[in-house]
């Protein structure tokens, strides 16, 4: 059993005292920041990224993954307790979770979320260990043409699955691709779009873009709806679900896990799509569907299982192909590049300890999540109570110091302010920043693969259609695009997102 050997190697790495410590710190910090209303995983990870740069690669990625699940779980906590989902993937958790909290069953909702996440995380980690190696083997056979087409498919899929205007989402991707090209061209050494500024010679740091668009931009947008949040004098109630509850959540958790694992692998999918679909499926099949929206425990269990499973399996394309399927994975890839690791199928064979260490740490991180969060719920409740007007200056302080410390440059701080303004304008125009961040990370890779593919084919563009894998991916992209453009289906897609 090779998989057991690999997992043993992974646990060996992840269970070292330092890595355990960073995993714990990551989960703790991630939850602490993620629980703050208005801060989703992308902003949380961007804020905490600079703290991981000084660590060795394995520890830093383990800590980042920990931050990710922590932030995800923290978001669910906020959704349940104050009906303020910090991120899109916990929007559906708020529907029934908040109702449960109002009925004095907050503790049960939180425990259900934790149990569902833990179970889903365990299954998804195992799936990851199972499917990553064959996928990486396949990816090793990919040439530049396949990679280019794969990226096209990934970007197209992220547009199809994004909500809001299709045109704007495509525009934001191309904008991101262009921004990613700023800096010195690796092949010719020509500085591009740098306006003769030496600070731009190495390109724009992705942390600056992420913090500006997701941190600053969000803050300005949130300030507009600054109301006093009505915090119910919070009684968490009993934590553990009783036998009756447990019986009711088993099936939803299983369904949520299956659906989430599947949808997480899709480009553009990840946690959000998973939790939305799990909720609507559950609503259709559950015997208790009349109670959905009124505090049904199934309505918490299914989407929570799905979003954690999706969060986990979205690591599959990132770790094996080096292609991000959502903005969080884009940040992970950025972090790997900073650590000097070129993401792609070679990571698994060249750095097995790193690869399997991350996978093992996912399970450990999920375990920490459950041990850490249930007893510490009192602390999280107090963190949620911090009023927003004291909170956002603190977020700004962390963003500013973090960005400054990237390369000790004031320029990055100014650039972050500029991206903040741009992010705010995008929010106003309902143009989502997430596709832009994806494009930004993929831009330079995409150019490189296009270049190599056409160099090898002696500038024959037909190469993309002559190679079967590449052609399949391009055809899939075309179908996906066509499907969304058809008016009848477009209406359905809009309805699905309204739901």
């Amino acid at each position: 059993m090779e998989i057991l050997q690999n997992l043993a190697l992974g646990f060996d790495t992840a269970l070292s005292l330092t890595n355990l410590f960073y995993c714990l710190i990551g989960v703790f910090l991630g939850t602490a920041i993620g629980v703050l209303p208005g801060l989703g995983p992308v902003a949380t990870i961007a804020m905490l990224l600079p703290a991981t740069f000084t660590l060795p690669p394995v520890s830093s990625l383990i800590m980042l993954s920990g931050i990710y699940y922590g932030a995800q779980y923290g978001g669910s906590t906020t959704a349940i307790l104050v009906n303020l989902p910090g991120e899109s993937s916990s929007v559906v958790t708020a529907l029934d979770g908040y109702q449960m909290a109002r009925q004095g069953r907050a503790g049960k909702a939180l425990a259900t979320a934790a149990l569902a996440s833990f179970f889903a995380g365990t299954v998804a980690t195992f799936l990851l260990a199972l499917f990553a190696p064959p996928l990486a083997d396949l990816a090793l056979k990919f040439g530049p043409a396949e990679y280019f087409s794969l990226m096209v498919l990934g970007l197209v899929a992220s547009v199809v699955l994004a909500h809001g205007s299709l045109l704007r989402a495509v525009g934001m991707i191309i904008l991101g691709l262009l921004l990613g090209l700023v800096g010195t061209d690796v092949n010719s050494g020509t500085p591009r779009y740098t306006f003769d500024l030496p600070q731009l010679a190495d390109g724009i740091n992705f942390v600056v873009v992420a913090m500006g668009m997701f941190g600053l931009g969000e803050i300005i947008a949130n300030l507009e709806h600054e109301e006093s949040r009505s915090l119910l004098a919070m009684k968490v109630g009993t934590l553990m679900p009783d036998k009756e509850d447990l019986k009711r959540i088993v099936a939803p958790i299983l369904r949520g896990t299956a659906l989430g694992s599947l949808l997480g692998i899709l480009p553009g999918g990840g946690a959000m799509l998973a939790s939305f679909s799990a909720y609507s499926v559950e609503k259709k099949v559950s015997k208790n569907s009349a109670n959905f929206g009124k505090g049904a425990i199934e309505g918490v269990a299914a989407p929570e299982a799905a979003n954690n499973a999706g969060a986990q399996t979205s690591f599959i394309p990132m770790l094996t192909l080096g292609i991000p399927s959502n903005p969080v994975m884009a940040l992970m890839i950025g972090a790997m590049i900073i650590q000097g690791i070129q993401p792609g199928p070679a990571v698994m064979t060249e750095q097995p300890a790193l690869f399997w260490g991350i996978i093992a740490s996912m399970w450990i991180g999920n375990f920490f999540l459950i041990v850490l969060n249930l007893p510490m719920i009192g602390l999280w409740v107090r963190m949620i109570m911090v009023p927003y007007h004291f909170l956002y200056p603190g977020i700004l302080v962390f963003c500013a110091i973090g960005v400054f410390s990237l390369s000790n440059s004031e320029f990055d701080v100014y650039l972050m302010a500029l991206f903040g303004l741009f992010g705010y304008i995008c929010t106003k125009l309902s143009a989502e920043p997430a596709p832009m961040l994806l494009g930004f990370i993929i831009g330079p890779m995409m150019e490189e693969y296009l270049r190599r593919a056409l160099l090898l084919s002696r500038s024959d563009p037909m190469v993309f259609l002559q190679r079967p894998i590449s052609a399949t991916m391009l055809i899939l992209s075309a179908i996906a695009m066509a499907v969304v453009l058809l008016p009848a289906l477009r209406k359905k897609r809009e309805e699905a997102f309204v739901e």
Partner: protein
Amino acid sequence: MSSLIRNQKDFWSGIIFLVVGLAAVIIGREYTMGTAGRMGPAYFPTILGWLLALLGMISIVRSLFRPGEPISRFAIKDIVMIMSAVILFGLLIRGAGLFVAVITLVMLSGFASTKFKVLPFLAVAIGLAIFAVLVFVTGLGLPMPIVGPWLRF
């Protein structure tokens, strides 16, 4: 003019795409184009630039026909306060040091809130400044002056 535009969001995002796309193409003319088989630095950005400009055009044209929601008002005061707070942080961090920079950032950005009051915010600012110094300079050892050369006599 504005009565012609039925979808403000489509119109303005179209303008942004068009301007950025054309800028990418025009600035890109300074770099070597190369051929498809031997791409110069201008090749890929020029393609993207044209694509983006085209999308912008479509979006602008569409905004004249398909109605959409109007754009909600811009919170100019909030933008100015937050932006200037962050920029001032950048200006102050080296010269005046981390402590002063953090306090300025918190006070100025806090002013954007409708709930701004001097004393409680000052308390938060000082608390955050001490925290930042302890965590980032003492703890993580980042090379930032606590009190900068401007304030040393």
